[in-house]
């Protein structure tokens, strides 16, 4: 009986509203207008350009110009204007018949009323209960990469961003709160305007040379970004369930606002330069050192003193590879790195425009980004376009579309890190000896006759290797208001990516020559289809209890296709990869593959807010995946969070130094469904089912026969890797938020690790996918912002982020026997090895190393083991596994970022640093190039021990014993990077029609402070594309 009454009431309300609206519209059209002009400034009197002015109760609005002036026609003389500006408290002001208004906005309490995007919705920052960091577009530094990930290092506490190789468009490793998964990946989930996008699919195929990893977000124009929210704790992420275990990054793009047309044009030009990271021997020195080495090896091979007691007179006389005349004639020789490197450049043009009425709003943009890398013939050219439209169809029905399209042409660099055949251009430029000329007298590229399979670095510049990426990401939403407070949103989207790699190895290259020219085309296509249906309900009960409920369904299907073909034996190099059929190879290659998977999900959230003081958030998600066996298709991921706004309590009302204080507690579970491929079969599609592969070929009768082997066993019990996380957070602000910040502590356990159970060596496959073991992590984060000065003519703001995490084992796979030196609960990514104690000297007897020769590393005997494989703690006169110790850990103890922004008059200056402290790396470059053999060597190699240098402190390199497993090349890789210095100048109004104009210069990466020897401590291998320094000049104009 109650129901009809309610409905009737609502009906009446609705009708009333409708009539009011109609009235308003008619009135607007019919009545005469007056115009109000005014000026918006901050409390210090500085003008605020671009502030929004809205006539209250209407959609009539405008924006202030460069000097903070505005002019708006209003319907009646006593209209009320709503003035808002980002970072300032919104103010309402009654016109009261005045023709001119002066409005001073007060700075918002650190943007407390800012709206923060969260999963499937948004919330006022002050009402957040989870650990969420928000970065607004204007806080991002200037970049030199098409990839937004490059801008986030040091910006968010708890987020670690590293670039391992800096080629144009190179990828980043992004970690949120550590890397607790050992096998299922630690990359966060990226959600762009509500569409969870998958990484990968940016590169096709392999080939002789590796183009390096590619940024998964290269196709996204960073200028389109409105804000980035990093969801860190389980309360914030659990709504994304099975993909949220590594955190979630929400990227929101700009949308149109109602108001007049706003056009932004920005352009920049940058030069990149790089210095060689390592100090290699010049030609003359290298010849001398190689002579020494040749003789030393001769003594060693023939057991002559100091390596044995054979009489040297029994040996043929030594003929050095380089004569004195050779050495005298040699000078500096070829600087191979210089030959392949050049000054790089980046130019970027971006235009965006937005406008809107109350019913239709749009944001359009176009971006052109063109980078020439610091290695010749490498680069990236990108075109992106975006259309974001919001259209009201009916009063109760809204449609919105986000559409972006991009095309990228990558000129790949050949980045293989191997030493011989697959050595890429950077690697070979280090390996190639300085005494070789670029070309021989006959005009052919030179080769090192002692390493004839290593390609000449300059010859690799002739390789034509492109990857073309296309991406369309589009998502349409239909949002209906069913009754007041109840909204229903249906969205459908498609993310389609393609990557086509085109490669031609001409005859001038080693491999091209062997194959008479080799061409290939390889293409990946990835499709991700998304359908979502979400119901939202919010209502206030008993005046001060706000309830909002959300329930939704999501279906996402992923499909990928691969096709590749290659041929060799070409008549000429002219065809490149454009005429594969012209090759006459006996067996041209052709391959294809296809895989698909699906995710079906149900989710819900409840938010309670009582008296604006007590906040409760509960979420739940159920994810079903067809990758898992019948027994565990669905995983369930709950979370709960509680927030207490202490400063809103009556007892806090009397004080005024503390402007904000909120305590947050949360608990929740999230998942990870990246099943591992078996280590010996990395290309298998990842699911929990048995599979036979037709890859065991054999040549009976010299004909290729396909053999079939069982490549995977089914595991019907396989389930999601589950992360359980607790978080405690404190948000605070002092002195009207002059000093504000957030502290977080988290503790999480990653259980049911997705891994591979090793099967005994005699089972038909070596392992099967399973859930084994657990790791745990804990850590803290601090984010502090201090507005040191806030005067109209001088302001200075400092932001500091600190983050620390520790990952360690909690429970190991019982079937894996730990090495004797490993502890049950060791940290992840430890570097284990032997301790060394200098060099074995002539005549020195090292009891624990009976076979040691002078010049070997003297390894310390620090421990022993009993028959059961337990450490005894007592040296046993033997060097074995028991003597290995923890030499370091690859993860930093602390990540930090420090950002200082100064504003003085029309000038602005930003100085931005970030770094990592307490992190160790094995320096493979020094390990390789402190040996003198037949290739290049570092200056430092002169310090190797030899009969010619018995005071040398580096091992001789004649034997490789313990070189790679001892402490000598494990180094502290802590670093501090001066990421940006940006100096800008805002022109006073220069021309009619130009609302604002800013010119800036920006210097990136000018300085890295680190004890790491040679190379950038952020890159981890000698074959990595080096980090350039960037010098940039840019102009932003707002029309």
């Amino acid at each position, binding site marked *: 009986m109650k129901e009809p009454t309610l409905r009737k009431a609502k009906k009446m309300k609705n009708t009333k509203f409708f009539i009011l609206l109609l009235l308003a519209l008619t009135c607007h059209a019919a009545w005469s207008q007056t115009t109000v002009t005014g000026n918006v400034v901050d409390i210090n009197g500085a003008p605020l350009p671009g502030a929004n002015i809205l006539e209250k109760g209407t959609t009539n609005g405008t924006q202030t110009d460069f000097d903070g002036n505005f002019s708006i026609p209003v319907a009646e003389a006593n209209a009320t204007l709503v003035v808002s500006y980002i970072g300032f408290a919104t103010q309402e002001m009654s016109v009261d018949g005045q023709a001119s208004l002066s409005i001073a906005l007060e700075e918002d309490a650190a943007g407390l009323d800012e709206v923060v995007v969260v999963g499937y919705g948004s919330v006022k920052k002050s009402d957040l209960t989870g650990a969420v960091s928000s970065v607004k577009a204007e806080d991002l530094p200037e970049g030199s990469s098409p990839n937004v990930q490059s801008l986030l290092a040091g910006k968010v506490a708890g987020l670690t961003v590293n670039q391992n190789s800096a080629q144009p468009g190179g990828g980043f490793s992004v970690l949120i709160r550590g890397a607790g998964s050992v096998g299922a990946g630690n990359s966060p989930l990226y959600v762009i305007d509500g569409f969870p996008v998958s990484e990968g699919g940016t590169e096709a195929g392999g080939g002789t040379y590796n183009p390096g990893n590619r940024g998964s977000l290269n196709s996204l124009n960073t200028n389109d970004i409105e804000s980035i929210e990093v969801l860190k704790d389980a309360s914030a992420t659990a709504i994304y369930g099975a993909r949220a275990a590594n955190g979630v990054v929400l990227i929101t793009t700009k949308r149109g606002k109602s108001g007049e047309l706003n056009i932004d044009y920005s352009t920049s030009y940058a030069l990149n330069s790089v210095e060689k990271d390592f100090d290699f021997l010049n030609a003359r020195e290298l010849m001398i050192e190689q002579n020494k*080495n040749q003789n030393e090896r001769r003594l060693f*091979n023939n*057991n002559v003193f100091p390596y044995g007691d054979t009489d040297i007179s029994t040996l*043929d006389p*030594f*003929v050095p590879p380089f004569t004195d005349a050779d050495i005298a004639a040699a000078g500096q020789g070829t600087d191979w790195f210089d030959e392949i490197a050049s000054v790089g450049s980046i130019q970027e043009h971006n235009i965006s425009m937005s406008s809107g009425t109350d019913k239709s709003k749009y944001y359009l943009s176009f971006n052109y980004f063109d980078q020439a890398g610091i290695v010749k013939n490498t680069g990236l050219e990108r075109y992106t376009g975006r259309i974001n439209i919001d259209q009201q169809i009916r009063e*109760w029905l809204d449609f919105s579309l986000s559409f972006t399209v991009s095309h990228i042409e990558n000129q790949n660099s050949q980045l293989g890190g191997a030493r011989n*055949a697959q050595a890429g251009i950077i690697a070979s430029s280090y390996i190639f000896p300085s005494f070789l000329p670029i070309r021989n007298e006959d005009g052919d590229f030179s080769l090192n*006759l*002692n390493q*004839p*399979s290593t390609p000449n670095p300059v010859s690799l510049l002739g390789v034509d290797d492109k990857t073309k990426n296309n991406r369309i990401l589009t998502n349409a939403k*239909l949002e209906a208001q069913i009754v007041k407070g109840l909204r*229903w949103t*249906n969205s459908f989207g498609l993310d389609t990516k393609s990557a086509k790699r085109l490669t031609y190895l001409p005859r001038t290259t080693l491999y091209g020559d*062997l*194959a008479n020219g080799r061409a290939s085309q390889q293409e990946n296509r990835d499709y991700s289809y998304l*359908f979502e*249906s979400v119901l939202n309900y919010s209502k206030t009960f008993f005046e001060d209890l706000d309830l909002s409920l959300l329930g939704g*369904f999501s*279906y996402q299907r992923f499909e990928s296709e691969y096709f590749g073909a290659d041929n060799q034996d070409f008549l000429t190099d002219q065809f490149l990869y454009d005429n594969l059929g012209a090759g006459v*190879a006996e*067996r041209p290659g052709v391959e*294809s*593959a296809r895989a*698909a998977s*699906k995710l*079906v999900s149900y989710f819900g959230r409840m938010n309670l807010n009582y008296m604006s003081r007590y906040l409760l958030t509960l979420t739940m998600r159920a994810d079903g*995946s*067809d*990758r898992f066996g019948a027994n565990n*298709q669905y995983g369930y991921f709950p979370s709960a969070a509680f927030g207490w706004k202490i400063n809103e309590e009556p007892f806090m009302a009397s004080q005024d130094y503390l402007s904000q204080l909120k305590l947050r507690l949360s608990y929740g579970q999230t998942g990870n469904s990246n099943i591992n491929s078996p280590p010996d079969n990395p290309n298998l599609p990842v699911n929990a*089912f048995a*599979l*036979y*592969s*037709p890859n*065991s*070929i*054999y*040549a*009976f*009768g*010299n004909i290729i026969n396909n*053999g*079939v*082997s069982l490549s995977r066993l089914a595991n019907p019990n396989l389930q999601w890797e589950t992360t359980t996380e607790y978080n405690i957070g404190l948000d605070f602000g002092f002195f009207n938020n002059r000093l504000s910040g957030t502290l977080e502590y988290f503790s999480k356990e990653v259980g049911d690790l997705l891994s591979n159970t*090793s*099967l*005994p*060596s*005699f*089972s*038909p496959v*070596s392992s099967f996918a399973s859930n084994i073991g657990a790791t745990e992590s804990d850590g803290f984060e601090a984010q502090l912002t201090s507005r040191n000065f806030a005067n109209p003519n001088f302001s200075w703001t400092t932001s500091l982020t600190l983050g620390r995490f520790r990952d360690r084992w909690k429970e190991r796979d019982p*079937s894996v*026997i730990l090495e004797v030196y490993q502890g049950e609960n060791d940290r992840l990514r430890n570097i284990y090895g032997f301790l060394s104690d200098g060099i074995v000297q002539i005549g020195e007897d090292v009891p624990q190393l009976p076979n040691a020769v002078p010049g070997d590393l003297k390894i310390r005997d620090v421990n022993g083991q009993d028959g059961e494989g337990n450490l005894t703690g007592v040296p046993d006169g033997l060097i074995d596994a028991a003597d290995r110790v923890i030499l370091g850990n690859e993860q930093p103890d602390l990540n930090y970022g420090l950002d200082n922004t100064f504003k003085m008059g029309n000038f602005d200056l930003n100085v931005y640093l970030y770094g990592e402290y307490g992190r160790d790396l094995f320096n493979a470059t020094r390990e390789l190039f402190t040996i003198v*053999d037949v290739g290049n060597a570092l200056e430092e190699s002169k310090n190797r021990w030899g009969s010619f240098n018995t005071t040398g402190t580096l091992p001789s390199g004649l*034997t*490789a014993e313990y070189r790679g497993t001892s402490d000598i090349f494990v180094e502290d890789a802590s670093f501090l990077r001066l990421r940006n210095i940006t100096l800008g100048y805002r022109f006073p109004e220069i021309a009619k029609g130009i609302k604002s104009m800013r010119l800036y210069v920006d210097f990136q990466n000018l300085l890295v402070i680190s004890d790491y020897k040679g190379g950038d401590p952020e890159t981890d291998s000698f074959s990595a594309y080096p980090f350039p320094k960037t010098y940039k000049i840019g102009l932003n104009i707002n029309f």
Partner: protein
Amino acid sequence: MKTVIRLKLVLLALAVSTVIGSCELEPETYGDLTPQNFPNTSEDFEASVTDIYRDLMESWAPEFLDNSQWMMNSLPTDELNTAWTGGWQSLDRLSWTPETGSVEGNFNRYVRSITKATLLIGNLEEASIEKGDFENRIIAEARTLRAFYAFNLLDLYGPVPIIVDYEEAKTISAETQPERPTQEWMVDFITTELNAVIPKLPESYESKDYGRVTKGAALTMLMKLQLHQKYWQGVLDSSERIMGLGYQLMPTYTSIFDIENEGGGNTETIFVVPKLAQSGGLAYSWFAACLPQTPEYKSPTGIKYSIWGGLKTPWTFYDKFEEGTDLRLTRLIRYYEDIDGNMVDFREVQNNKAVGASPKKYGDDPEHNGYRQGNDVIIYRYADILLARAEAINEISGPNAEAMALVDQIRTRAGVSEISRNLTQVSFRDFILDERGRELWCEGHRRQDLIRHGKFISTAEAEGNNPGGDYLTLYPIPQSARNENPKIGQNPGY
């Protein structure tokens, strides 16, 4: 108006629930075989046997030789040395450990392949497929390979547990921890299996199946096992049976290894791993590993060879031949033309790579591509049978005329003089060992031969290595195998 709104919403709701209802979680598989569709037919089982052969190639003659059984058989002996570091050195200098790559890799591959063969045999026997000649041959091939792998394990590691029972193979788990069997059990298993399959295997195949195990191959495996066990009477019986199968020495030494004689035309080869230059997975890289790098060897075919130059035959071994007379030195290269057209005496070249002659052994492949060559790798050939028979006769009856005549057949072809008739049993025994070295160099027999003659360790010492003792005649059980199964005891000495 309100009704209209409601109606539209109801329609939308219906549409949405249809979509939701149609979202199933049925897995999709493309381009792979699953237990639902494999193996069903006899051809499916044949493809499974191909996979067992593949394991032989991966162990004996893979694309890159680092961890091959071939290198385990050659590098520790006097016929080969290397300048390469890492696992190569551990083999060359007898300094391997339970963690050495080749030690672990070949162990795992063979024990795994034995289980795969056991499953295949059992599955095919159980399958509702009518068993004709084809099916019986598949079973016989799988059993032969299984026996051969068991023999290889016995030779390298001593007796080790293997899964030859179908029921046991089906239920392997981490808890499966079999004990080491006795030497007798292992020898008996291999012998019984080979004897069972010999009558079922064909003497030869049509050319498209060249490379499969034949009656002759299985008999040779049996003979080699008997030789390994010094069961001399067995060697006599088996070699006689092999000699009845029509094998003949090729007219010249080099023609055995020439690519144009591959296939049925080679009367001497008994068991080979067929190889192809064009396909990475099927090629191998012997020339790249062994040809002289500085000054660079000039390919006689005009195809440019990738040369890494890490493997050489020491001059001390080279000196066992009569230089200038012995035709078997034709491809154990001391003199050659380099890419600049100069003649090189490699013995006079000082370099810091391995020192010695270049053991080219095989003929040039016209399809050679970079480092890839496609010469079939010979595992067993007829000369080995003759020499083994001579050795067995000498052990049973001393150096009689038959034994000498067998060795002379080999020597005559090599262009060297017949052997002295004044040899004692002991000196003939030593002579046979040397002759085996000269005939079978770098074919993967030397380790077995030296061990059988008790000279493996002393030869290594003479080479300047510092072995710790006789225990090195067996490789250690890999640490990984002992970790997963503590019941496998380590070989003594490790």
